């Protein structure tokens, strides 16, 4: 097992590695880049990375440039997970045969795939499920911005109820998205994966701990990372962390982990719980909910979040 990286403070952490360059084409304020940095900076180990088609991919490897200082592959929208599983299989095979490159001596690379929520919850779900069922030693990180951002803001099955998207727009007779956000963390835990966690970039210590735990885990690890999108959630680029704080402190985006498919542990309990209304009110995508005919939805939202929090706490208590 490799040595776990010690991290003292945020300043040191955010500048401690150059594995992901600030030079990229992501929107100013995009949380994708913060999350990626936090994941890559959490370890000393060499990394082999994949990204699915989406904002992260199109903004970070535009020929002849790349923002990645590790080996990196993009195949398609749905198969970043399987690309990394294939690379991991190759590592195992060549290790067994004693045919790894010299540069691997004394080092153990970690295999990580990134995908947006579209790539994860929807089109790529079958591939991820397959990888997890087969138990590849890999980490899959979902950059969950609750929308197909790269193609201009269409709904995904991660889009929460009431959000206005280009394919589920709010209008005179519609409040926007009608479906509930899919419980991807629960679904991935149900695969019996050794480690599954939900993280947010503003809670960086929590995130780093979970990523490090993930890297120490043998077998498939799933990380769902809330990724605030300035463009589609519609907030100012310098508000990314403030919006993220609202999400975690309102418990719209609770932080927890599940081990071996059962053992659930909540990792963050806000001291001052913020009303869901404040979270929704800070983003343009929910603006219409504050019109009289849709305002009832805000109360329903609050009820939904409370119920979910109750459920998570009970599961934690019961340890099942």
């Amino acid at each position, binding site marked *: 097992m490799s040595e776990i990286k010690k991290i003292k403070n945020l300043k040191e952490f955010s500048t401690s590695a150059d594995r992901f360059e600030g030079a990229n084409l992501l929107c100013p304020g995009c949380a994708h880049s913060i999350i990626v940095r936090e994941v890559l900076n959490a370890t000393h180990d060499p990394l082999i990375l*994949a990204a699915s088609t989406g904002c992260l991919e*199109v903004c970070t490897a535009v020929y002849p440039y790349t923002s990645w200082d590790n080996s990196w592959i*993009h195949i*398609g929208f749905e198969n970043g997970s399987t690309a990394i599983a294939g690379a991991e299989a190759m590592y195992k095979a060549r290790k067994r*045969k004693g045919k790894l490159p010299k540069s691997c001596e004394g080092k153990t690379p970690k295999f990580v795939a990134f995908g947006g929520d579209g790539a994860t919850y929807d089109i790529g779900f079958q591939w991820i499920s397959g990888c997890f069922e*087969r138990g590849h030693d890999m980490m899959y990180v979902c950059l969950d911005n609750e929308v197909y951002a790269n193609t201009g803001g269409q709904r995904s099955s991660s889009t929460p109820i009431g959000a206005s998207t280009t394919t589920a727009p709010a209008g005179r007779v519609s409040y926007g998205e009608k479906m509930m956000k899919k419980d991807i963390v629960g679904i991935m835990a149900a695969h019996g994966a050794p480690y599954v966690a939900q993280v947010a970039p503003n809670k960086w210590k929590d995130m780093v701990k979970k990523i490090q735990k993930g890297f120490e885990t043998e077998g498939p690890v799933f990380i769902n990372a809330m990724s605030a999108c300035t463009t589609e959630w519609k907030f100012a680029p310098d508000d990314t962390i403030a919006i993220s704080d609202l999400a975690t402190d309102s418990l719209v985006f609770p932080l927890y982990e599940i081990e071996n498919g059962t053992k659930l542990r909540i990792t963050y309990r806000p001291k001052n719980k913020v009303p869901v209304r404040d979270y929704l009110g800070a983003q343009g995508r929910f603006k219409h909910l504050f019109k009289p005919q849709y305002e009832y939805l805000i109360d329903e939202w609050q009820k939904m979040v409370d119920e979910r929090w109750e459920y998570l706490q009970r599961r934690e208590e019961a340890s099942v």
Partner: protein
Amino acid sequence: MAEKMELNEVEVWDGNMAASQALRQAQIDVVAAYPITPSTPVVQNYGSFLANGYVDGEFVMVESEHAAMSGCVGAAAAGGRVATATSSQGFALMVEVLYQASGMRLPIVLVVVNRALAAPLNVNGDHSDMYLGRDSGWIQLDAYNAQEAYDLTLMAFRIGEDVDIRLPVMVHQDGFITSHTAENVRPLSDDEAYAFIGEYPMVNAMLDLAKPVTYGVQTEEDWHFEHKARQHHDLMTKVFGKVEEVFDAFEKKTGRKYNIVEEYFMDDADVAIVALGTTVDTAAYVAEKLRKEGIKAGVVSPRLIRPWPHAQMMEALKGVKAVACLDRSSPNGAMGMLYNEVAATMYQSDSKPVITNYVYGLGGRDFTVEHAENIYKELAANAEAGKPTTPLQQFIGLRGPKLSFY
């Protein structure tokens, strides 16, 4: 270390076993696969080699063909020898990733046991899947029998993995007719086969931690064209020579001779059938027979389908008066693939033969000696008349009213 398998000088293998034995002898590092009729046994045989210690790579049984090719791409980019097999619907599901594999210049070997595409659903052989892949940037080789399936699969590794080429290779064989027919096959020993293919040359390996690489970048109008043009250029200028070189080396080793374009009785032929797969043998048998009746018949077959051997085809058909291109795939709204390729090639030749298109054998329908005889007789009439005496495109072996076009 994997155990070696003692093989007889002559083994009785079907086409699937022949292909899986070649994969075993290549000592592939990663096979990511999904079963489908009629190529399933390739995967099954490989699984049993693994279970019995004859291979020691990773065998990843994924949840679909799309994932199979995705896993192969990730594995190949990581740096090692990779292969898989598929047919028909599975091939269709792979198509997106086939383009990714060739665009990233990854030398994966794909055994394709050709089968019809639904609807209607059909498990038998035709060349619909082969044709579906023809613009995907892969090198495509065609085997007529189990021996060739074995030989060409071995050679595919050496061709595709060459550092100047670095392109994926498909080896085609006819569903059931080849894949499920047991025949005598003369294998190389494990040591000879491995020595022939050689160690995998690790190029741009993601696993080389000292030299990180980026695969599958974004390019738009500024660079995409250059990448695609380079890939096409390498296919058109480097592959023919490399294939010839590997065919020659193989002949030296085994005495078995392969050509980029195969010719049977073509020295003085007036009429010729152009065909692929098992049909080539049938046509050659009939051509020999008809020669006794005074028809100077021959057969031409592109062993290499992609890149298209334009120059070699022109040479092979030089001086021929009438040519029939036999397509085993529904043309779905045009002349057949072979017709289009051959006609385009021969338009540039001095002798412009009369070229007709026969569509046959869809979904495993038999192609008989009688069918071939009739075609040659029509060709002889065309040659005599100097123009088509029958419609340009006809369906043969079809029940019901005769269908023909143009």
